[in-house]
């Protein structure tokens, strides 16, 4: 998604501290200060009009002093956990048992989905990772409309690489 937005003309806010690796061969496009927003939100005004990558748990930290468009990427939870387990293994770190994490992420997402519509500073578009791979044109249209047609659709489409859809379930 970050690659798509960046190529489409919504520049990714990144410090390039986390370099590309086997798990993310095109790079992470992350911004370290986004992880510390709760303690220090002073970077936010400079991020206006740009794309910032955040995991769902950090959305709670966004202060209502700004307005945000959230493109919420959903993916089959088994595929997410499979991918995360491989990343953790490569980092030499342990993962909790899959069934426990399934349950915990389920609770986390349920709570978040209840909370998001109550936040007037957050506008949310849900995008399925799997739909994006299977029907990119429709999903890119939805994303462009959500962002007031600012990003270029063709450029966004050109950033989608189904070869990077790894850790997929056998029936996907």
């Amino acid at each position: 998604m970050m690659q798509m937005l960046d190529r489409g003309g919504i520049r990714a806010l990144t410090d390039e501290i986390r370099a590309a690796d086997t798990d993310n061969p095109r790079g992470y496009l992350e911004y370290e200060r986004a992880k510390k927003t709760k303690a220090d939100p002073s970077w936010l005004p400079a991020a206006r009009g740009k794309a910032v990558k955040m995991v769902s748990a950090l959305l709670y930290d966004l202060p209502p002093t700004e307005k945000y468009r959230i493109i919420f990427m959903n993916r089959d939870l088994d595929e997410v956990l499979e991918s995360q387990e491989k990343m953790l293994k490569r980092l030499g770190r342990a993962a909790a048992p899959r069934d426990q994490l399934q349950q915990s992420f389920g609770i986390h997402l349920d709570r978040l989905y209840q909370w998001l519509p109550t936040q007037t500073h957050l506008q949310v578009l849900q995008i399925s990772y799997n739909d994006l791979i299977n029907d990119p044109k429709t999903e890119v249209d939805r994303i462009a409309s959500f962002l007031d047609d600012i990003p270029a659709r063709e450029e966004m489409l050109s950033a989608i690489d189904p070869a990077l859809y790894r850790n997929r379930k056998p029936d996907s």
Partner: protein
Amino acid sequence: MTKVSIDSNLYERARQAAEKAGFSSAEELITTAIETELKRLGEADAERQVADQLRGLGYIE
């Protein structure tokens, strides 16, 4: 049904509060309170586990 002992003063407070809040009995209020607390604890555990996983991946600090 398992029986649980609670302080009689606390039970009386629960009975009065249940009546005021429209519960059918003190038992119903106490059951609701236990269920609410168990849900809260379960959610806190789940959020902690998710945070640990995301921290391990470098996505949060």
